[in-house]
């Protein structure tokens, strides 16, 4: 097991290297020209060339790549092309914000998803099952665009319960409670899709393990339903929960772009989108590398957890 984990950790290095390569060259191969896109309106070809030189964009791609790689380690990715400020200062805070939103959304989707899936699984086929599932199904399939606006309109404009967006109240001093208040609506909106998926998986798993022989054994021993559900069914559906949760973290992070837009959440999504629009390679590259690293780590943790959860897989052998 230790070897397996170490092996995976070691595997991160080439993986991230490949990702960095791909990210770099895909970003570069795009049709866009950063200088032309952003500045060209007023400039002559000669001036554009000057700026390209100033930014080192005239050098061969591999050289640029090496420079970038070096900069990743030395100063977090160099300077943004469009705003000439350190990439790390642009990418990290935004990414942190996305992580906050992502974590909140993950918590919401896992907690609600598991709860809903559980309830509907144990009430399989009854009214409660139908109602609860319909509720998540409707929730998750409402387009975020539509749903987000309606939520803002109702909770912020109409009833004035929640702020209409942003991360904190610019007039207040922005405490933790304020952040939570601002998180509610976007986290909920961002969690919907994963919530449905988790709920459906949990429901299926509950139904399946309720019919299993070992649950019958425990029932025959007079264990209460709650105890069986909590311990045995709960434990045996942990794997699917962990697996889908791992996926949720990922999908929430990449999927929040639209949520970020609607709820004006200053996250990595809008930074990347802006950077792509401005062909701001250093930002795109470093941003994606950061997101990619997160993914890879989340997947690694998920895999290790899954191994640990399944006694049969634990000892790697057999």
């Amino acid at each position, binding site marked *: 097991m230790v070897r397996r984990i170490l092996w995976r950790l070691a595997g991160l290095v080439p993986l991230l290297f490949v990702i960095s390569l791909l990210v770099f060259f895909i970003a570069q191969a795009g049709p866009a020209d950063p200088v032309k896109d952003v500045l060209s309106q007023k400039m002559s070809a000669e001036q554009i060339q000057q700026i390209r030189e100033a930014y080192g964009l005239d050098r061969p791609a591999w050289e640029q790549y090496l420079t970038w790689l070096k900069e990743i380690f030395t100063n977090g990715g160099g300077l943004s092309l469009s705003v000439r400020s350190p990439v790390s200062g642009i990418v990290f805070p935004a990414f942190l914000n996305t992580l906050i939103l992502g974590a909140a959304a993950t918590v919401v989707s896992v907690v609600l998803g598991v709860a809903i899936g559980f309830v509907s699984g144990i009430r399989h086929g009854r009214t409660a099952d139908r109602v609860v599932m319909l509720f998540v199904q409707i929730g998750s*399939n409402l387009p975020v665009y*539509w749903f987000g606006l309606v939520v803002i309109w109702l909770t912020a404009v109409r009833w004035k319960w929640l702020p209409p967006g942003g991360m904190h109240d610019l007039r207040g001093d922005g405490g933790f409670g304020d952040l939570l208040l601002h998180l509610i609506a976007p986290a909920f909106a961002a969690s919907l899709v994963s919530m449905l998926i988790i709920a459906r*998986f949990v429901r299926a798993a509950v139904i399946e393990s309720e019919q299993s022989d070992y649950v019958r054994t425990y029932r025959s021993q007079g264990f209460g339903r709650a105890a069986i559900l909590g311990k045995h069914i709960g434990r045996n559906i942990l794997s699917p929960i962990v697996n889908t949760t791992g*996926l949720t973290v990922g999908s929430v992070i990449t999927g929040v772009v639209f949520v970020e837009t609607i709820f004006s959440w200053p996250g990595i999504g809008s930074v990347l989108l802006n950077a792509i629009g401005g062909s701001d390679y250093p930002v795109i590259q470093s941003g994606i590398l950061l997101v990619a690293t997160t993914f890879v780590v989340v*997947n690694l943790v998920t895999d290790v957890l899954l191994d640990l959860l399944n006694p049969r897989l634990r000892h790697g052998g057999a």
Partner: protein
Amino acid sequence: MSTSTHAVVPPRLRRSFPARFVRNREALLGLVVLVVVIGVSVLAPWLAPEDPNAGDAGNVLAPVGAPGHLLGTDDQGRDVLSRVIHGGRGALVVAISSVTVAVVVGTALGLFAAFAGRRTSGVLMRVVDLMFAFPVILVALSLAAILQPGAWVLIGTVVFAAVPYVTRIVFAEARIEREKDYVEAARSLGASEAAIVRTEVLPNLISSVVIYGTSLVGVNIVFTASLSALGLGIQPPDADWGRMISEGAKVLVTGHPGVATFPAVAILLVALAFNWLGDGLRDVLNP
């Protein structure tokens, strides 16, 4: 040994797929809704009362129930009903085809990785991690640069985005199945690894795959709409549910909620139908 006489002959069961399917009300309902929606989409040119793209600048944002426009008109004065009827064509084709491809490819990859040697599987799953890590927007933009913006970009993007998810779900489950005795039994019965994967393990995973796949359809109709809004997919003025929503959002809370809400309801209906179909199919496939 035909010695034992059967006083009690086991009854014949009706186990054929259609028989089971029809018995399952949920699946049937989902199917019916889908057939209706697809039928309406296919027959749109004959069903729609108006040309969905014909605007009437003199009659913009007519309210629901306005004469000649049952569901009102949008900001260009186009008939919302006709647009809703037409709007499913692209969405359905893109969502269904891309999710199908993603599910098939993802399942195949996941199964392969679960049964391949540790090294191959490690490499493959890392490649999948890699796909995960790529922001879909970038994928969409790159595709749009290679192809022209349009349905193919959307399909490609959804496939690229969904494959890693399906793969990981299938991989995780297949790895558990792999350890089970029936796999060993099948091996002892001369099944090749490929046959084991395809005919023995797959039926045990189908419920997860179906659940995931059907969840994805609705989600992806919406997702492709967002890509279209970035200019990478279906182009205006063609009616498309997703686009109609993002365009109608402008007037959602300013007194004309219908423009965005009717297509949202249409998407919801399709997504629900797929969910029902999925849950139903799961029961049918997992008796």
